[in-house]
């Protein structure tokens, strides 16, 4: 069996776990991205402990911990709180995993756990928490490695269309924003090359558990997220003060708004089609 087919046959969470581990190791070794191993230990520890406890307590069995692992590392990489604060990692980890058990619709969770936790922390705790902005040396080589592995893995887990749709829409909308605002085009496209976007594109928007069920639907959702983000960014460009809490992390907040709505609609449509199919079968019998 060739390794690509092995990759394709794996639970998508494992190659994704590999990719985020690669980013963690590369980023920490080269740039010290974590800002302290206590942050990683706290985030990972709380995420896995919460997953273990809640799955056992609520479902009667221990869940696969890959999701908790990915979430823990995502939080450790993306949350940049004030120095000395560990509670954002602890509470963020708990909230992320607990959101899977609490915020459900028709038995499925709606938010990507780290997306929910980071959005909440950014919006509810702006005096304590910032999101990753400039990190990893603004370095082309690091970017290239992460993008290469990211695209390969997104392709193998069947989510490349989501990544490409989002990136394509982002670029087009950035060009439009640049025209509207009159700023340099490169500045509006530039965020794509940053680490926050790498994590967003490869770990959040492509999360198989919280994406909708069809390829077309996923592409529409990715485009909608890009559109919502563009709206937030336009508001930022025009200094609309009332929306300023959204400006530090536009893609993450946009996904937190659009993602669960899309998932809920998708689940509802799924149920309607199942009922219709059952009805048709009953009628024919």
């Amino acid at each position: 069996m060739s390794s690509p087919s092995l990759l394709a046959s794996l639970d998508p969470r494992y190659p994704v776990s590999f990719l985020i581990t690669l980013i963690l190791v590369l980023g920490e070794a080269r740039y010290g991205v974590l800002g302290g191993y206590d942050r990683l230990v706290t985030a990972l520890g709380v995420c896995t402990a919460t997953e273990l406890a809640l799955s056992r307590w609520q479902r009667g069995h221990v869940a696969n911990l890959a999701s908790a692992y990915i979430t823990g590392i995502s939080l450790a990489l993306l949350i940049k709180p004030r120095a000395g604060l560990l509670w954002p990692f602890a509470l963020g980890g708990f909230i992320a995993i607990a959101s899977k058990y609490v915020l459900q619709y028709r038995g499925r969770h709606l938010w990507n756990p780290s997306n929910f936790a980071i959005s909440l922390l950014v919006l509810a705790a702006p005096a304590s928490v910032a999101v990753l902005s400039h990190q990893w040396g603004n370095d082309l080589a690091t970017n290239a490695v992460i993008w290469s592995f990211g695209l390969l893995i997104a392709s193998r887990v069947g989510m490349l269309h989501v990544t490409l749709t989002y990136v394509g829409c982002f670029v087009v909308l950035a060009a439009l924003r640049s025209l509207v605002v009159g700023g340099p085009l490169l500045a509006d496209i530039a965020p794509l090359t940053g680490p926050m976007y790498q994590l967003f594109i490869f770990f959040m928007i492509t999360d198989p558990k919280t994406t909708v069920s069809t390829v077309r639907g996923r592409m529409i959702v990715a485009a909608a997220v890009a559109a919502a983000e563009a709206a937030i960014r336009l508001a930022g460009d025009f200094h609309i003060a009332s929306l300023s809490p959204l400006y530090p992390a536009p893609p993450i907040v946009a996904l937190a708004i659009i993602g669960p709505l899309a998932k809920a609609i998708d689940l509802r449509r799924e149920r309607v089609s199942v009922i219709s199919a059952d009805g048709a079968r009953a009628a024919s019998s």
Partner: protein
Amino acid sequence: MKIISAVHPDKCVTCVADAAGDMVHAVISPPRSWRRGAVALSFLAAIALVVALDRRVDRAGGDAAVPGFHFTDLAAQVGISFVHHGPTLDPKLDNIAPLVGALGASVTVTDVNRDGWPDLYLTNSRFGFPNALYVNRGDGTFVNVASAAGVADVNRPGEGVSMGAVWGDYDNDGLEDLLIYKWGYLQLFKNLGDLHFKDVTEAAGLRRWMNSNSAVWIDYDRDGLLDLYVTGYFRSDIDLWHLKTTRIMENSFEFATNGGENRLFHNVGGGRFEDVTDRMGVGSTRWTLAVAAADFNGDGWPDLFLANDYGPEELYLNDHGRRFVLSRAGLESDSKSGMSATVGDVLNRGRLDAFVTNISERGYLFQGNNLRLNFLPELGRFQQGAQGVIVDAGWAWGAQLGDLDNDGRNELFIVNGYVSGDRSRSYWYAMSKIAGANGNVFEDARTWPAIGTASLSGYERSRVLVNRGLAGWSDVAAAAGVTDEYDGRAVALADLFNRGVLDVVVANQNQPALVYKNTVRPGNHWIAFQLVGTRSNRCAIGAEVTVAAGGTRQLRVVDGGSGFASQNDRRLHFGLGQSARVDSAVIRWPSGTVQTLARPAADQLHVITEPAR
């Protein structure tokens, strides 16, 4: 007997059966809906806790307690009406001109006319706008004599504009000379006495174009002649008024190395300097904004501590004056935006620690200031000691450590704020767009979004942090009368009125300078030292004094430039608290001579001349 669990959608049923497997009875655990409710409740509680903890962080730091000192801005009353004007640069930089040109306000203290009263030098940074030399009349007022002294008209097209200055007696004639560092040509002025200066830059071999934001006098080889370390910010091939390219910005927000090269100039005597940068291994190109010189590892040789923008701090340890070695001292991976480097014995351990300011902005960035506690002798590294209010002061610039209430512990005075423009428009969002980008993108100034009239961390208040020892720091700025929201850059401490208390002078960007006269609650004692070198450099830069009193020991060093674009009073001031008796004062001169003063009298200034041996 065995236990069997059975699955049910809403209940957890535990069945107890006998050995044959026949069920004896069943235990029904709390229903799943109850469990879901408990999880939901804890989920909501966690969210509520996030909000509560964030509010606590937001409110933390303000100390309602009345501090033992109070500041009053008396700039106008004492005759200091200086207003800084920032540089106007090449129109190619117009989109971000307020950002790039947001530097240049500086203040330094010296006794320029040797009358025993500290004088002030303030820089301007626009062509045609003069620098000011405020001479202390000794009657509580100052007079600007810069023009007559020949140190005013230094901001001229083709020559560059001032970014700061440092005073040092490079020729050991007993008169403080002046080095002005610029975005442009360095200028060295020899003090001729009688408040007259002569530009000796060319003869000294220092006519170099450097886009510099700091410099320090240091006798690195302990030959008794002051050498000069000048840092580079923008590359030295860049003329900011005649740009050949707009690719002049940093190529990384974290690990940029495309800044101007720092330069070490060795004083060879006869009023001449030679560039020994390469030989001594100190040519960092890390966008250095501040430099402090002191003997951090206690080997008797002064080291260099650099606060670098867009990168980690650097410690260059002096190897017996033969060369400097970039040390792995726990600084190398902690990349931030170092703005200011000030040195002091923060916890009265007899060690020189370093405080470095950085950037914090709600929601966007929490770099945090660094308090580098010196554990070099034991651990070979600094330990981060910044906690609580000391960590996040805003977009922090200059800072100084000094005992503001004479209680025997160093306070911290930090000035903040970058660009105060339109209060309703913030540039933070626009900057966040490019901050995460690839370095090639934002290295070009043209790719930066236009700032227009927006603010960037504007209108930030200064911090006055009282040192509670191991209990941490308290911000008493408001209670101490420091409420201005100017864009502070440089801060210098001096006993301006010879009263035995440290006053504070602040240079603000594009705004008036402030002179905060300090009123200290009576009861605490003090002692001060003015050192005169003989075998060491005349102004004793690099000399350390350790005062033992009231069961504690305090260490101070004579600085040749400290903080950001500033230099403190050359006289070393120690608060003594309630103790009116000093057990001893030990002076370690740069020459290596150690001099012990037994029971020097408190509440007075001691002028000490270096002994022959």
